[in-house]
């Protein structure tokens, strides 16, 4: 038998015999004693979740995505506690730092060079003036400045000669001085923005905002969708028709427009509510921030329809089965049947849909924040950081790229994990 398996031509209706058998001589060797005992040992029975977890573990992409999500959680929730800067604290003297720096000695050398550049400029200007014999006009001065500057541009070579390298992380000069004096200063890993706020902490908080909104919105969608869908499916008949008409109506609303309006309208209302009293609810609103709540409420109010449809479909199938009839015969109430017999049976679908809802919510949040109608200052979000970075994109391009990459990788890993979860929980859906 050749090593290469011959495949049938594309679309051929000939059966793929060689592939079908695919046997090698080794396959005909007698079984060892070990293999025999393996064959007869009983397989442990597995629960639904054990089975799903086993399948999920085999999916390398999904496991990698899960690892990335875990890293993101660490970054967003533990990170801000480790960094001694706050997302809204201005650090005086550290404005607009790059995420790299020169050491103090190198700075001194560079300073002396640019100082000599100045001297060269004055020299050149004086020389030109003497040559011409009269005052120089502004155009001539500009030309001379430009030539001096371009001759100065071989600083790169100069840096190489003197062994001057950029070093990682941003420090302001004052901070470098403090380090030289033996103090420990936490670096600005991604530099600082124009108000002197540490960009890395802001990124952590922004990631946290995105994740909180994604997860809360998905949970809200889950609750509304599950209750609505199961009632509609279980009741059936006229109730079902009316409830599904309503779903259809919400389905055809232009969602982005309504979410935009809802989140702008809810925010002031929630702020007013927060200031209205001192109850537990008001405290909760204060804790999460009115704008976060308004974002995921707006999301939850519109996106539950998909969940409701899916659950209704499942319930419609399940409610005709014998165990429901048995529960009815035993006198269980409708609420009890839904809660403890029907919903647990569609938990796979529910988990998958919820998980795929998270990236969608993150998507929407970043979209709104980018447009300036989402999370409002001083709170930050990846979307609004990208929007802020647009103005200085030529000088500070990394300020745009970093949040953009963070949000894309986050959505990507949620998507991949959701897909993996779907394959693991419901193998029939696998494409």
């Amino acid at each position, binding site marked *: 038998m050749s090593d290469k398996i011959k495949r049938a031509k594309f679309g051929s209706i000939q059966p793929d015999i060689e592939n079908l058998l695919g046997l090698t001589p080794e396959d005909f060797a007698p079984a060892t004693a070990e293999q025999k005992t393996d064959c007869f040992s009983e397989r442990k029975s597995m629960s639904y979740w054990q089975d799903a977890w086993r399948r999920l573990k085999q999916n390398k992409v999904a496991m990698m995505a899960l690892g990335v999500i875990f890293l993101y959680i660490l970054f967003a929730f533990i990170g801000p506690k480790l960094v001694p800067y706050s997302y809204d604290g201005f650090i005086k003297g550290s404005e607009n730092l790059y995420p790299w720096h020169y050491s103090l000695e190198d700075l001194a050398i560079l300073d002396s060079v640019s100082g000599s550049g100045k001297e060269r400029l004055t020299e050149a200007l004086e020389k030109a003036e003497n040559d011409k014999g009269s005052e120089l006009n502004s155009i001539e001065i500009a030309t001379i400045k430009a030539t001096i500057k371009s001759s100065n541009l071989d600083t790169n070579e100069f840096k190489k000669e003197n062994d001057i390298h950029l070093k990682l992380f941003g420090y302001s000069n004052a901070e470098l001085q403090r380090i030289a004096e033996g103090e420990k200063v936490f670096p600005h890993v991604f530099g600082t923005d124009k108000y002197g706020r540490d960009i890395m902490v802001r990124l952590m908080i922004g990631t946290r905002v995105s994740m909180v909104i994604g997860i809360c919105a998905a949970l809200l969608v889950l609750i509304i969708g599950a209750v609505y869908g199961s009632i509609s499916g279980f009741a059936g008949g006229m109730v079902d028709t009316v409830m599904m008409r309503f779903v259809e109506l919400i389905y*055809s609303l*232009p969602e982005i427009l309504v979410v935009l309006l809802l989140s*702008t*309208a809810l925010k002031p209302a929630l702020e007013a509510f927060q200031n209205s009293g001192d109850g537990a609810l008001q405290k909760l609103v204060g804790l999460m921030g009115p704008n976060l709540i308004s974002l995921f409420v707006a999301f939850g109010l519109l996106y539950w329809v998909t969940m409701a449809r899916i659950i209704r479909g499942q319930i419609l199938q399940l409610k005709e089965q014998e165990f429901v009839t048995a529960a009815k015969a035993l006198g269980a109430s409708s609420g009890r049947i839904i809660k403890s017999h029907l919903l647990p049976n569609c938990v796979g679908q529910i988990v998958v849909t919820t998980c795929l809802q998270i990236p969608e919510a993150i998507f929407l949040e970043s979209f709104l924040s980018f447009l300036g109608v989402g999370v409002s200052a001083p709170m930050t979000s990846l979307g609004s950081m990208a929007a802020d970075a647009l103005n200085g994109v030529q000088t500070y391009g990394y300020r745009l790229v970093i949040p953009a990459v963070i949000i894309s990788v986050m959505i990507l890993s949620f998507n991949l994990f959701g897909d993996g979860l779907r394959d693991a929980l419901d193998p029939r859906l696998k494409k």
Partner: protein
Amino acid sequence: MAKYTLKRFGMALLTLLVVASLTFLLMNSVPGSPWLSEKSPSQATINALNEKYGMDKPVIVQLGKYLENLAQGDMGVSLKMQKNRPVIDIIKEMFPVSASIGFFAVLWATLVGVTLGCLAAYHRGKWLDSLLRVVCTIGISMPTFVIATLLLATFAGSNQALRIFPTIFNANLGFNAYVLPCLALGLYPMCYTARQARSSMLDALGQDYIKTARAKGLRNPTIIFKHALRNALIPVITYLGPEIAFAFCGGFVVETVFSVPGLGRYFIQSILNRDYPVIMGTTIFLAAFIILMNFFVDLLYKTVDPRIDFTEGGN
């Protein structure tokens, strides 16, 4: 079919009514008013202004009045951004810009997406398929603003050689002006369409009628383009409705990034400025447009695939 069309049309009208009322009520529940600007006017001025624009009456009366005017094609006048200019005029001026960008974006997204999807299905399991799948998965994980801003950063960056396309929209430049906005707007739908086209093409290639066609001895291109593609396109058509909606609403971001004087950008500005009539007018107009597109796509779907049953009980 006629009954179905009528029913769908009724539903569309109802949805539009809900959108109009919802927007109106939401707008009126937002604290702050269009009269508040840098110099705060006196209470008497505010009262007079409220009376002039009918904003002193109960909300429900205002809503009724607004809907009545709307039925006659009157959307009121802008209160703040372009004072006293009819909203309908503003829409007439700005919508064509948004529409042309949205149209070209949807066009390239669908054409390229379907082609790539078919290619991937045809080369199933080979490197091209894997490559396309990776690219498309990354593509649908990037928000439009990320794509748009990264394009902007690349083409407006410090590298002079890359400054091929203008990053500030200028309709007079013709084709070049449209390249970046359309590219940014169409990437997400393109990737989505490609994924969908791939799976439905694979589905179609596994069907019995393809085997029959092969048994008849038809050539590969005939089978793919005449038999498989036609059926594979049906799920793609269902996505066209949301895709068009996306192209016009995703336009908010693209228009902001590339400074396109379109309706989306104006809508965001009107929300920030609390210019009620403009918000109302734009929302209703865009909603009507989206609902109408969905309506047409549904009808198209039904025409293309007569097997689909929309009557009671059908799904």
